[in-house]
């Protein structure tokens, strides 16, 4: 099975990468492809604020997802992971007395503590994710067989993947520890969890991709591979390139920058290959617009068969 096909057999996949590389588009495309394969897929955003505008939700014709999973396209559910929702779920599950849970949620002091206390935000997101992974259909099968998360910037991603180990050192027993260990049993099991990095073949995104891979490894998060987005097609042979090189420098016509781009892209992909053994799946540049997601899904499907 190719590494990309394996992605669809996981329970939880983190889509990571620098801003502006097309992470949300690829998350949407993978969801589309998962749905075509008959996988019950749930796509997640991580939000700070319930009113945040979501680039992922935009691909499904809405401004944002809700805190409860909703059908956003045939066979695809969407949800926003919010610290607050997760914290509420957690308090309700731990404080078995309903009165105590209500008291907890209405306490101003506790609310302030939860909104700024150390790692409570990440813990809320983590617990909501765990709740979604646990959810079962009446048949006993997981309600969401694949949970696909559009992760925020690199720093936040590593805060989340490093959370269990960090907190277990502080709180080794009790309900928090139990939830963290259960979450780890999904995320850190290479058969169940994987992080994929989205990058584009340019200097800074490739550097950040390498740093991210190193960081993920340190936090014990299994990595599936790199999706190299927007790789420019080179229409010239090596001989043509060298024949065109000096006249282009002299004339410098419109298109000269486009001429250089595929070479720079190759150089960056080579640099990434030198830095990681993971599979790197190259995806072409596609025009933005309504057909982007299904176009990307088609490419991914083809890549999944060959890579």
């Amino acid at each position, binding site marked *: 099975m190719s590494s990309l096909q394996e992605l669809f057999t996981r329970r939880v996949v983190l889509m990571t990468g*620098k801003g502006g590389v097309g992470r949300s588009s690829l998350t949407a495309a993978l969801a589309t492809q998962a749905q075509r394969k008959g996988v019950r897929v749930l796509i997640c955003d991580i939000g700070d604020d319930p009113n945040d505008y979501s680039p992922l939700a935009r691909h499904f014709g809405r401004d944002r997802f809700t805190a409860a999973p909703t059908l956003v396209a045939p066979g695809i559910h969407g949800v926003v992971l919010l610290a607050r929702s997760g914290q509420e779920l957690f308090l309700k599950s731990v404080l078995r007395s309903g009165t*105590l849970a209500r008291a907890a949620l209405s306490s101003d002091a506790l609310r302030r503590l939860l909104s*700024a206390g150390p790692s*409570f935000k990440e813990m809320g997101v983590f617990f909501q994710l765990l709740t979604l992974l646990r959810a079962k259909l009446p048949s006993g099968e997981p309600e969401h067989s694949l949970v696909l998360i559009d992760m925020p*910037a690199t720093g936040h991603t590593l805060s989340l993947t490093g959370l269990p180990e960090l907190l277990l050192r502080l709180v080794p027993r009790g309900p928090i520890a139990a939830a963290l260990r259960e979450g780890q049993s999904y995320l850190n099991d290479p058969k169940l969890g994987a992080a994929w990095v989205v990058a584009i073949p340019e200097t800074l995104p490739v550097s950040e991709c390498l740093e991210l891979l190193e960081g993920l490894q340190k936090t014990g998060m299994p990595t599936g591979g790199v999706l190299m987005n927007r790789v420019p097609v080179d229409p010239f042979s090596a001989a043509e390139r060298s024949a065109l090189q000096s006249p282009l420098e002299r*004339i410098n016509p*419109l*298109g000269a920058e486009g001429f250089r781009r595929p070479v720079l892209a190759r150089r960056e992909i080579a640099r990434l290959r030198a830095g990681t053994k993971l599979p790197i799946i190259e995806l072409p540049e596609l025009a933005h617009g309504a057909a982007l997601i299904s176009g990307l899904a088609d490419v991914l499907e083809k890549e999944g068969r060959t890579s």
Partner: protein
Amino acid sequence: MTNELVRIGELIRNRRVIVCCGAGGVGKTTTAAALSLAAARAGRRVLVLTIDPSKRLAETLGVSRNPPTPVAVPPDRQIAAGIHAPASLDAWMLDPKLVADESVRRLTKTPEDAERVLSNRIYQQVSSMVAGMHEYTAMEALHRLVNEGRYDLVVLDTPPSRHALDFLEAPRRLSGLVDSSALQAFLPKRDSLMARAASKVIEKILGAVFGEEFAHELVAFMMTFSGIFSALNVDVNAMRTFLSGPDVAFLLVTSPAPATLAEAHFFQDKTKELGLPFRGFVLNRSRARNTSKRWPDETSLEDLPAEAKAALPRLQVMAQGELDAAKRDLSLLTELEQRAGTSATAIAVPELPEGADDMLTLLTIADALAAS
């Protein structure tokens, strides 16, 4: 209200603070570095303050990553960049943990008090995960450095976040916590029956969630922490007032993407709502200038070798693609200019395919910004 047009070249000469906002991956750090270079070249004493930049930017400026205080860019690099005394360029790539440690040392009464906090295991493990800590420390550092008077201009590269202004909101959340009244509720009460009952409930909740032992430790930590940081609380409000003033300019750094206009719209509204002086858009990686480029006429292509001639139709297809992209970028720039109105500006910085953080590239951008 003045009718004078806002220009970036003016901002770098007469503002005391320039705040660069924007999502991750748009070249915000590079823009901040270029702005500070330009200002130092124009004769000012400048500090560029940034969080978690790329390694190469630190290398280009010749400063170490994450020092505890600002450091001067090495003299040879300053001279190479055309910066001459009394003008100067310092850079500080600040590490939130180190700045928090610094603040603890500064705000505690005795070294022993400081040591007690710094050696606390909760502090060591998770202080960097106190929500808003990065933003809080950046804000605090900015406040202190502006007031010290060592610099004519501080350029702040804000931490990456989906929402460009999150760094202004985040310290509020933290001050909501360190406001001592919030944490009083967690302490055992002796006064009224009501208060005793309320704190009993909270104790029960925390005990059930964290286990009794850790709950006590956590509350003790939060009390100490808030005791120290509530001294900074005043600064957050003072800072907000300062940032609303005429010495400050907010810029949105962005790049051509389908969502750029929506983001620009949101940013402008938000700054207005918060009463902050929005002064312009910097559109990075723009190919807008290429609209004036033309495909060469036949005569200049006649003497090409046969192999190159055969490839020309494909190069022409590429040229058409570039032209289409250039036109899109130009119309985006025009829309941003209209949106900017008379109190702000919009400027395009060309795409720099070689990676935008070697010194020569930075100088090119700096000159383009200074001349605008």
